């Protein structure tokens, strides 16, 4: 068994260089709450582990263009303590904070949650609903991508060899808008979502919905943006009829797995219900209730 090399680059440039120069497969290490479990189980055997937590950009949260730039390795505990982000994008913070226990929160990051590629990753539907984008660095320079374009299937991403996520951008929160994320788990803590639903919406001065994005987790091979569900809300006052139309669109978008934690019929039904509840919370936040 060959030894695993370990690197702690101090800048994005250095990290790109490390990843490009790796013999054998290289793995980025953020909080390690997925990676260490996979290492231990023998699912991954990288030639190099690159700890990205010493790079300042990956650990910072700052205001940018009226929104926020969040380092990909910022932990749940750190983001949860940021009152400004929590106020602007409570749904995103809720999603990240639902991950695991207090101990897991000390380490788990948005970048790791996304790039691990689990269809049930809790922060991902909220990020997609928020229209968040990622700043990616790699051997060919940097690029921006929508969060919904990163995961391609369970455990798989569209990141090219040597690329990694540096930060996320949460856009400026429009007036009269709100977001929310809910998940269903059979227990009250420490479980994987059977369904997750993120909703972000904005209203005009008369209370008519002008934009809405609805994303679902754990009901397909990856988290999905359900465009038809968002459309069902736009132009309405987010009343019961609109919410039912949105739920129907959510149910149509489900292609879930069938297991003891949730049958196909159950997950599909719950997707509609959860999306409605998340939309009601987002609506209450948008109207300042």
């Amino acid at each position: 068994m060959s030894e695993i090399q370990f690197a702690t680059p101090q800048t994005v440039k250095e990290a790109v260089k490390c990843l490009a120069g790796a013999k054998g497969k290289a793995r980025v290490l953020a909080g390690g709450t997925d990676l260490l479990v996979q290492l231990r189980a023998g699912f991954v055997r990288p030639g190099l582990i690159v700890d990205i937590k010493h790079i300042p950009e990956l650990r910072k949260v700052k205001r940018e263009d009226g929104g926020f730039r969040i380092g990909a390795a910022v932990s749940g505990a750190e983001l949860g303590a940021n009152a400004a982000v929590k106020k602007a994008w409570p749904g995103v913070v809720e999603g990240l904070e639902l991950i695991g226990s207090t101990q897991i929160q000390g380490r788990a990051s948005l970048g790791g949650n996304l790039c691990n590629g689990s269809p049930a990753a809790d922060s991902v539907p909220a990020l997609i609903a928020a229209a968040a984008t990622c700043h990616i660095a790699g051997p060919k320079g940097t690029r921006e991508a929508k969060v919904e374009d990163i995961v391609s299937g369970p455990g798989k991403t569209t990141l090219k060899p040597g690329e990694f996520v540096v930060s996320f951008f949460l856009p400026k929160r429009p007036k009269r808008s709100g977001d929310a994320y809910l998940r269903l788990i059979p227990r009250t803590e420490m479980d994987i979502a059977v369904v997750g639903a993120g909703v972000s919406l904005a209203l005009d001065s008369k209370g008519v919905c002008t934009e809405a994005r609805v994303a679902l987790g754990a009901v397909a091979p990856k988290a999905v943006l359900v465009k038809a569900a968002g459309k069902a809300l736009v132009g309405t006052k987010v009343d019961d009829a609109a919410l039912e139309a949105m739920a129907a669109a959510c149910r149509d978008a489900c292609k879930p797995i069938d297991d003891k934690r949730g049958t196909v019929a159950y997950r599909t039904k719950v997707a509609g219900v959860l999306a409605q509840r998340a939309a009601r919370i987002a609506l209450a936040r948008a109207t300042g209730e």
Partner: protein
Amino acid sequence: MAKHHVTTTINGDPAEFLCETQQTLLDCLRDELGLTGSKEGCASGDCGACSVMLDGRLVCACLVLGVEAEGATIETIEGVAQGDELHPLQKHFLEDAALQCGVCTPGFIVAAKALLEHNPDPTETEARYWLAGNLCRCTGYDKIIKAVMNAAAEMRGA
């Protein structure tokens, strides 16, 4: 590649050890440094028996690489008592019979200590949620929560 030489601070004292990349901080504490107070229940982040403080944050030592401890500050169960003087949490765990086999106890005490530093006056519900990542096979949790609440009250001078 030679082993990594890691220099760190554990319970206020400088410490160093050698390790391979894939060795966890828990492996290093137990096998390289002989600090066997932190326990391995699951090695997958589920049970909290390996709870330690890393740079002021509560983490599972089984989900941290030993090499990540380079330059870091670590606190383990071994640093909780002051010499022969038990921490109020330790006293109340004993008095309130909050342990049976004891495998989960170091993790619970480290995690509860972090809770009380962060929130000296938690509700029972807050304490239960904070400790949701610590599993106990024996006690049924009620006595653990009672010990934590009693220790919190004593520490507040109530």
